[in-house]
């Protein structure tokens, strides 16, 4: 049974159409990646699901409930969390306050301050520092921790490894199985195709706002993906 699926999802920025009828499904416990070139519509898809971009209600289904027209805060309370592109921490909040604000939707579950610090021990010593004083990698950990604090049932990672050093990317992917457990699903935007296929169960390749290829990550054909990537 799918937890989350989009049905013919369209998306517009002003008079510009970015998505043309997307059908994407994420099941319970599944991790799914979205790949595609710049401007393919990956971030738009994420924003639409998270409620930052309003859609007709039926286009996004969450556990058989139509949620396309809900506001982002209402979507968050349903258990859909997002780690936005470029971290987007709150600069006037300390590291710990950033984490605490993640718990705003007051959902219960295993993730608390302590468990986030256990997942990313290096954050502990920085807990009272302003979030802007951290390195990019540490900031990404805070952003992930912040999303986890809402004890989500699905996490949307937009550009999970963007601008991060290889060693940090490795740390984050190492933590991923820890994050995606006990019924939590993940939808991941990743520009590194190899990593996307390596760490997720299934993938969707987008081009110009349409799904051009999808399937199981394990059986993916590199050549087909490259074709789909450029939409030729």
């Amino acid at each position, binding site marked *: 049974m799918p937890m989350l699926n989009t049905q013919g999802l369209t998306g517009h920025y002003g008079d510009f159409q970015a998505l043309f009828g997307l059908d994407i499904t994420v099941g319970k416990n599944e991790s799914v990646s979205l790949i595609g070139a710049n401007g393919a519509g990956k971030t738009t898809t994420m924003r639409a699901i998270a409620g930052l971009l309003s859609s007709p209600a039926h286009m996004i289904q969450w556990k058989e409930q139509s949620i396309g027209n809900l*506001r982002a*805060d209402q979507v968050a*309370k349903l258990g859909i969390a997002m780690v*936005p592109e470029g971290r987007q921490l*709150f600069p006037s909040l300390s590291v710990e306050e950033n984490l605490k*604000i993640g718990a*705003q939707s007051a959902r219960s579950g295993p993730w608390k301050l302590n468990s986030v610090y256990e997942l990313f021990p290096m954050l502990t010593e920085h807990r009272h520092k302003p979030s802007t004083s951290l390195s990019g990698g540490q900031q990404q950990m805070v952003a992930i921790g912040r999303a986890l604090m809402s004890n989500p049932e699905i996490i949307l990672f937009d550009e999970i490894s963007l601008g991060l050093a290889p060693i940090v990317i490795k740390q984050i992917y190492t933590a991923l199985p820890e994050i995606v457990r006990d019924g939590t699903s993940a939808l991941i935007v990743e520009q590194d195709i190899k990593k996307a296929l390596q760490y997720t169960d299934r993938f969707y390749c987008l081009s110009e706002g349409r799904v051009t290829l999808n399937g199981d990550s394990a059986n993916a054909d590199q050549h087909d993906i490259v074709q789909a990537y450029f939409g030729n």
Partner: protein
Amino acid sequence: MDWINIIVQGILIGGLYALFAAGLSLIFGVMRLVNIAHGDLIVLAAFLGLTVTASIGIHPLTALLIVVPIMAMVGYALQYLLLNRTMGDDILPPLLVTFGLSVIIQNALLEVYSADPQKLQSGPLETASISIGSINIGVLPLLMFVVAIAVIGGLQWLFYKTAIGRAFRATSDNADIAQLMGLNKAHVFGLAMALSLSVVAIAGIFLGMRTAFDPASGPARLIFGFEAVIIGGLGNLWGTLIGGVILGVAQGIGAKINPGWQLLAGHCAFLLVLAIRPKGLFPRVEH
């Protein structure tokens, strides 16, 4: 001795100006909104105080218990129903809508209360004073100053130590991302305006106890508050208190030299700060 007295009185009136400024500073901090109707809302609160004290015969300070919640509700409704529709990158809509509100409130007050100056009667408190050496300190101005410190201290605590303060700061940093955390922007903004108008209510009652007011008194209050904010430095609440004090002292000194120069001296102090330190005396340090 005269001069010391003038400075002390100026400092104390500065507390009232800081109260005018605190609500203005607060909503600017949370949602980058400058409320042109701020002064008129202070006067509205004073008139509300007048109605409450006159109809049930209570002391103006007791009337705070009624006026503060009413103004808070007005603030929430105003923000939620009207001002939230104007929030965006363009500064013109909020500016013009609050400007329109200012005209509406002034004329509505004129219609209901007439143009006659009014005052809130606070009984013996009006004349009570403490003597320190040759300086007489009025109990009412002293109370106002203490309340101003308490209000600013309270706001500071609320902003930096509570969950709602965290929500204010997060929404101020990035409203979209705050929304992703489950914070409803419209509600958070409503709460911020409710808080701002609670402070406005306190400012209005003290204004009414301290001086006569009429429906046209609002704009001058807005300007005093604005000057205190800019002198003190944007986004710095304690700086706002110092800004209010500087304004009060400047006005006192101006009035001492020539009664016609009271307000002029305050404005000149503001323009001087603007010319020398455009970011104010104590700008907030960015992280």
